[in-house]
């Protein structure tokens, strides 16, 4: 069974992002970039399925600029067998990314596609579901457990209020939630080995898809600042403030 794992290069989760001076976008100059944390979980799940003998090959794919090679190398160091970069100089919207991925997936014909549920830059939470629609695949979003059974997968999903288990026909899309697994770190020997793995670069222009923007970013600003309040010295003082000043408890 072949598994494709689309990943994304994003601002590292420790970076506090700010708008540019002219509010035209966020300021990404000289900030640390990493693999989106949910994509690490996706890679880990695919690699574990391979280690368990369920999967035969894990292919990491991304749509992005040349520097996204760095995150694909990380994916290879974490255990992916080969990588594909769909090179694109512009920042694409999720719909266009899903279209680009769908072309690669049609070509690779995997049984399973695992993606992160959302990227921590745009916080859109769209690409996996869109990809499922474009390919007419089943989808199991926000997965916390995946079991492969012949031509189906049984997936436990994190939903509001609890867990839901569904069975999806393969090929299918799974998007990862936090508790699916705990990703490993890449070891130095594996980072070295990753350099020898197969790495394809395709140009987005060759895929024959419309990637024009459907939305315009008009402004990026800071949210209203919340003022720090006061320190209280004791539980009594806290309760007194909540009752008489804030009036939120009686």
């Amino acid at each position, binding site marked *: 069974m072949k598994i494709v794992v689309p990943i994304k290069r994003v601002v590292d989760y420790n970076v506090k*992002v700010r708008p540019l001076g002219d509010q035209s976008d966020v300021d990404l100059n000289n900030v640390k970039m990493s693999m989106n944390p949910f994509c690490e979980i996706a890679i880990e799940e695919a690699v574990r399925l391979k280690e368990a003998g369920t999967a035969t090959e894990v292919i990491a794919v991304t749509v992005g600029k040349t520097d996204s090679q760095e995150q694909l190398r990380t994916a290879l160091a974490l255990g992916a067998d080969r990588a594909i970069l769909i090179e694109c100089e512009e920042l694409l919207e999720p719909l266009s990314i899903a279209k680009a991925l769908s072309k690669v997936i049609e070509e690779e014909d995997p049984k399973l596609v695992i993606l992160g549920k959302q990227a921590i830059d745009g916080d859109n939470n769209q690409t996996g579901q869109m990809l499922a629609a474009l390919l007419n695949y*089943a989808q199991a979003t926000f997965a916390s457990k995946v079991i492969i059974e012949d031509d189906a997968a049984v997936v436990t999903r994190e939903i509001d209020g*609890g*867990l839901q288990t569904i069975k999806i026909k393969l090929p299918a899309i799974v998007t990862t939630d936090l508790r699916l697994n705990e990703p490993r770190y890449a070891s130095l020997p594996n980072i070295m080995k990753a350099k020898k793995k197969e790495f394809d670069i395709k140009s987005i222009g060759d895929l024959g898809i419309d990637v024009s923007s459907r939305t315009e970013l008009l402004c990026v600003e800071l949210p209203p600042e919340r003022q720090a309040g006061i320190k*209280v010295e004791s539980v009594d003082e806290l309760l007194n403030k*909540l009752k008489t000043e804030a009036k939120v408890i009686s």
Partner: protein
Amino acid sequence: MSILVIVEHDNSNLKPATLNTIAAANAIGASVHLLVAGSSCQSVADECSAVEGVEKVLLADDVAYENQLAESIANLIKSVSSDYTHILAPATTFGKNVLPRLSALLDVQQISEIIEIISEDTFKRPIYAGSCIATVKSNDSIKVITVRATAFDPVNTSGGSATIDSVSAEGVSDLSSFVGEEIAKTDRPELTAASIVISGGRGMQSGDNFHLLETIADKLGAAVGASRAAVDAGFVPNDYQVGQTGKIVAPDLYIAVGISGAIQHLAGMKDSKVIVAINKDEDAPIFQVADYGLVADLFDVLPELSEKL
């Protein structure tokens, strides 16, 4: 202009986030229709028809929609979509699952989790865990939108008298099937609907210690939440998680206990009316957003708080 709101429900009752989504629809313009897709869910349609500001309720009552799986629901919405300029759903796990699938079927770039409406095609939404707010204009002919419930006050559940029209099942898919569900049974209010939330972080040290929060929650009629760190550490299930990748809450009172205040947690609670932080580290970033901070050991504070409530 005509706006369709996808109703979230459990075949018996409307889920409250739907009411906030209808409020967002009303803010965009008239006329607002609702789609109830479920099985034996006439009572939900009746409930919807009484909701203020709703003109029409579309009811798709079919066993195929019992568990509202994304493949069939997205096809159904697509089948009625041509009548609408906007299609909205709450940004809950239900809306987040279904709407992007619909969006791709319609060849539309969805706008996720809007928090403000500037005009019928321009919206504000948080990005980077709410570190920044983006103003986005959609040029698609149909706007597909998920709505952050806490950003809009719910509409009234009475005062409306919408007609109910039946729509037939369309594009039922067998790609996925329902196996089972484990919904946490609790007498406490739902996290996103509670007026008071008390959350624990890594400082709680173990899942067992969450009973300290639960005792207080029960006295206050509060819901219990957690930071991602507490979920990652396995103290509590993921559905407790408040933050960028969990639930967004905005209660009247939010009590953060043993939570340092990472950006990703603040993203889920900083719109709360009053924030209390209890942490023994006086430099914890949570104090920068707290109205009342208490620098103390939570294992001393919680029993005392519980006793004095």
